[in-house]
């Protein structure tokens, strides 16, 4: 059984169908890059996996937890998949440490000392152990995104969804965030990332999914997909002629 099973998923906004029957199985430890033009449905697909968007048809399960649209099932599913956003979405009224501790104590009812120890460990892991007391607005974009990663990791998910996590960053800050993601991949974390970082996708990912007009248009190992794109749409997207 695959870790994430996406079966015949369809999603419409009114009459506009943005996902037109997606099938994708992700094995434990896989790192998957989802690429494609804007409007191709790649972010929507990612947001469907942890129930931020409700799917119109089809099914999604993560490690046996079915995506069902009620608070109990959603919570069970969200404890298995963490998500990191383009805009970081740190809680501005809490310190970096507070951000990483909050959901542990609120959702998992972890004791404060334990949650704090975990927060320090996770902030260390993303290289920000010394910023425990800093508020988000005292951190650079790259640092904020690393705190967001630490916050997701502290919930000990078995997979992480990354939604264009470097797109809002200044170019010189992209590398520090990607370095953290690369490390996670090396440690065997299952990752699904929507990304525009083609070089990163080529180096780190086990599979690349090219989405076009709400469908998985092409899928394969990065060396095949990038070196030998089969469909004209992917060739055009990659700028190969």
């Amino acid at each position, binding site marked *: 059984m695959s870790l994430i099973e996406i079966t015949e998923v369809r999603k419409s906004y009114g009459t506009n169908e943005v996902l037109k029957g997606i099938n994708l199985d992700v094995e434990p430890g896989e790192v998957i890059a989802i690429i494609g033009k804007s409007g191709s449905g790649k972010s929507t697909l990612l947001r469907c996996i942890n129930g931020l968007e409700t799917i119109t048809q089809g099914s999604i399960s993560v490690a046996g937890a079915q995506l069902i649209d009620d608070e109990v099932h959603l919570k069970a599913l969200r404890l298995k998949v*963490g998500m990191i956003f383009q805009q970081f*979405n740190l809680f501005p009224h809490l310190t970096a440490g507070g951000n990483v501790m909050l959901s542990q104590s*609120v959702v998992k009812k972890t004791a404060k000392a334990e949650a704090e120890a975990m927060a320090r460990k996770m902030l260390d892991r993303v290289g920000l152990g010394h910023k425990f007391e800093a508020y988000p607005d005292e951190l650079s974009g790259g640092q904020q995104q690393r705190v967001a990663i630490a916050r997701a990791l502290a919930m000990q998910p078995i997979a992480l969804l990354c939604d264009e996590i470097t797109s809002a960053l200044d170019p010189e800050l992209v590398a520090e965030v990607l370095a953290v993601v690369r490390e996670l991949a090396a440690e065997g974390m299952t990752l699904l990332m929507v990304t525009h970082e083609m070089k990163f996708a080529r180096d780190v990912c086990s599979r690349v999914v090219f989405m076009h007009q709400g469908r998985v248009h092409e899928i394969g190992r990065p060396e095949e997909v990038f070196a030998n794109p089969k469909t004209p749409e992917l060739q055009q997207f990659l700028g190969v002629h």
Partner: protein
Amino acid sequence: MIEFSTWDILRNLLLATRWTILLSLVSFVGGGAVGLLLLFLRISKRKAARAFAKYYIELFQGTPLLMQLFLAFFGLGLFGIDVPAWLAAGLALVLWTASFLAEIWRGCVESIARGQWEASASLGMGRLQQMRYVILPQALKIAVPPTVGFSVQVVKGTALTSIIGFVELSKAGTVVTNATFQPFTVYGLVALIYFALCWPLSKSSQILERKLNVAHRNH
């Protein structure tokens, strides 16, 4: 005829001011509690709850406070319930205040970026937990200046309760005028007392607004 000194007038007005202050406090605290409940209904996921809160707010904001006072005072009387003026006044003001506070606070909650809801949901928080730990702490800071500002409206709103016979500052003004035949002095003093109650509230609302804004920090 008995002569009234200005001090006599002022003393009686000040005694009645206690009731204006008490009624304002009750309205504000009670209205805050009901308003918070309405807020939760207004942003609930249930359609019926949202609709109820929406119509409640529209009804109480769309009719004069005076009519609400009349309805609470005379209307309940029709059903054989004997409503004392203080109860009708308190009830109407609480319900009226709630409708405005709920709407002010809804604006504050909705001004919090959607990403905050999404991030906290992704971490497994339930809706109440999101409100309690993520949204309200941020919304509260935004809500303080307009809420304090609105309290001025509540204080002035209490003046209308004089019409159903609740003896607060305005009613006392009328009573004292009838005894002294010095309407200008009496109502002048009444106005000054209202001003003395309201001005510090307006001022603190302004100061709070500047304080919470200039820093532009969320902590």
